[in-house]
């Protein structure tokens, strides 16, 4: 090997050594960098999982807060509805007294002026009662406590009866009601009571705000596309009344708002009716639209969807109990009034007296009633729901447990207005329900119903009582 060759080889070796060194350094550096990256990744992951855990905790905490808030809201809502129920009772009890006494007064001998004063008294009391009912209704709907029935009803027949109810009022105001009734029947599933309430309210408003001309009622029914038996319905009540401006239209469905604050002075009312109607329509899955022109008239249309159904088959005809005039001295029943309030005691006894029921037994609470009933001979009880010591429901349940020759007919008598109360009464074993204030007419109907049911039963004690009365 020449010296030159040796030098070249030496140079080549040096280059290889340097390249080897370079690659090694680069590899080590890459490893260091990778380690750094790995560590950074680990840190980032750790941080992420910490954040996730923290978030989880925050979510948990928020959920706890939310459920606590929900619980509080539910409790508040419950307290509110309980308060309403109590208030309803508290307001209705004295109002019951006022209205009952006013009614009794109206049946007594009065001068023309006194008669007018009593009539005003009754009118004011009745509208106060209507207001309380409206407020209760509204708060019940707002509390989501409104449950709608799904029962067959004939829409056209329902509208027939509502329109007929308002015809005299319209005539009195010099207005005509045109009800464009389609032929035949329209059997639908739904809550007839609530629909009647909406229609009555709209008709009553139409009459109230119309001074000349009249009211037209139309109903449209058409199949809902892509369904088998669903119908799209629209009920329109159009009047030629004072109408509303655009601004007034905007707040006509808001509770306690009337088109115009002077309306209350001129037309009366609370401004709750339409708010209730709207909520009822919404509960039915529908809506109410309004269009109006100031000075020309208004048109309210109720839109909803309902299932068409066939006419219910042969319902057992309920005998219509005519309101017979009081027949003094022919009451064949042994009647008991269980009522703690002395004014109400006095009132009921006077009303019963008017209907010819004398020698009425009195119980100041449920326990007294139970004691007296267990001795036998009581055929009909007017039972207040809320009484000290033992309430009407407990007393009724206890009475139903008694082994009597004949169970008495029990009519619940209560200032509570809620439908649930009616149900509770029924479940406790009561036969009938009268909400206060009790009018002479409604009491008469309930008493006759009770009396005819008792005589239909042909119960020995009832028959015995009738015999005694007859022979007396």
């Amino acid at each position, binding site marked *: 090997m020449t010296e030159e060759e040796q030098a070249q080889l030496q140079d080549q070796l040096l280059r290889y050594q340097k390249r080897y*060194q*370079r690659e090694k*350094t680069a590899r080590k550096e890459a490893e260091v960098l*990778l380690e750094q990256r790995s560590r950074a990744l680990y840190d980032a992951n750790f941080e992420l999982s910490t954040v996730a855990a923290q978030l989880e905790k925050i979510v948990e905490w928020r959920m706890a807060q939310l459920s606590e808030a929900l619980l509080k809201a539910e409790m508040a809502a419950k307290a509110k509805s309980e308060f309403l129920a109590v208030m309803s009772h508290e307001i209705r009890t004295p109002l019951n007294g006022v209205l009952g006494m006013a009614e009794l007064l109206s049946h007594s001998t009065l001068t023309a002026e006194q008669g007018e004063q009593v009539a005003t008294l009754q009118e004011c009391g009745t509208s106060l009662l209507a207001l309380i009912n409206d407020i209760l209704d509204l708060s019940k709907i707002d509390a989501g406590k409104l449950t709608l029935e799904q029962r067959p009803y004939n829409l056209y027949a329902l509208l027939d009866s509502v329109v007929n109810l308002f015809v005299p009022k319209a005539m009195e105001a010099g207005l005509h009601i045109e009800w464009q009734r389609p032929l035949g029947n329209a059997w639908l599933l739904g809550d007839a009571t609530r629909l009647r309430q909406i229609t009555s309210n709209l008709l009553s408003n139409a009459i109230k705000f119309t001074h000349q001309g009249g009211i037209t009622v139309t109903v449209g029914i058409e199949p809902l596309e892509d369904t088998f038996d669903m119908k799209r319905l629209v009920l329109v009540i159009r009047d030629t009344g004072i109408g509303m401006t655009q601004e007034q239209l905007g707040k006509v469905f808001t509770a306690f708002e009337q088109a115009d604050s002077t309306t209350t002075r001129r037309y009366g009312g609370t401004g709750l009716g339409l708010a209730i109607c709207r909520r009822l329509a919404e509960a039915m899955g529908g809506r109410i639209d309004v269009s109006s022109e100031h000075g020309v008239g208004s048109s309210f249309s109720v839109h909803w969807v309902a299932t068409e159904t066939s006419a219910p088959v042969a319902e057992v005809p309920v005998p219509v109990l005519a309101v017979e005039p009081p027949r003094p001295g022919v009451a064949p029943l042994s009647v008991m009034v269980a009522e703690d309030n002395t004014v109400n005691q006095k009132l009921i006894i006077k009303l019963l007296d008017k209907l010819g029921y004398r020698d009425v037994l009195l119980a100041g609470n449920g326990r007294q009633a139970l004691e007296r009933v267990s001795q036998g001979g009581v055929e009909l009880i007017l039972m207040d729901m809320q009484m000290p010591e033992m309430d009407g429901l407990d007393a009724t349940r206890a009475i139903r447990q008694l082994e009597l020759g004949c169970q008495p007919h029990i009519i619940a008598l209560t200032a509570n207005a809620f439908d649930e109360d009616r149900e509770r009464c029924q479940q406790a074993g009561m036969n009938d329900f009268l909400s206060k204030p009790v009018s002479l007419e409604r009491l008469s109907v309930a008493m006759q119903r009770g009396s005819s049911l008792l005589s239909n039963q042909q119960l020995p004690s009832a028959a015995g009582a009738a015999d005694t009365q007859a022979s007396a």
Partner: protein
Amino acid sequence: MKGVVFTEFLEMVESRFSADMVDDIIEDAGIKSGGAYTAVGSYPFAEMVALVTALSQRSGLEPQALIYAFGHYLFGRFALLYPYSIQGCSCAFMVLSNIEKHIHQEVQKLYPDAQLPHIEVLSSDERCLSLLYSSPRCLAPLASGLIQGALDHFGEQGRIVAEPLNDDGSKVRFVVELV
């Protein structure tokens, strides 16, 4: 500057010239890293300048021409190394229009600290694409090489006109016209 640019540059030198040339320019450049680059590292931009200068002196080629050639080489390498970056692109214009929102996004995933040039599409139609290149590194010839690399990748013929918009060449308008 990202290490991957250095490693790719040295590989180009090795394949176009020789392994000895790599040793020589590293020696000539007298750089701090000693040329021990790793793709995942970061190195001073000045080292790249020194390497290109050394290569220019050794080869007798203009630095601009070398940078252009490197850009051309780099596109082919990128297409090979990161095929997903140009996935779904059927022509050079598609790749070039997507640099900013697609390719650079991919680069950021691998190298969050990478300082990338700004490539803005000024106008584009079927035949002509106008791009605005802005970078403080003033490597417009590299961009030019990359554009040519893209055209060649898709087997397209085109004319590239670079129009500097300022003195230092940090802002250059490229007009690519298909022929």
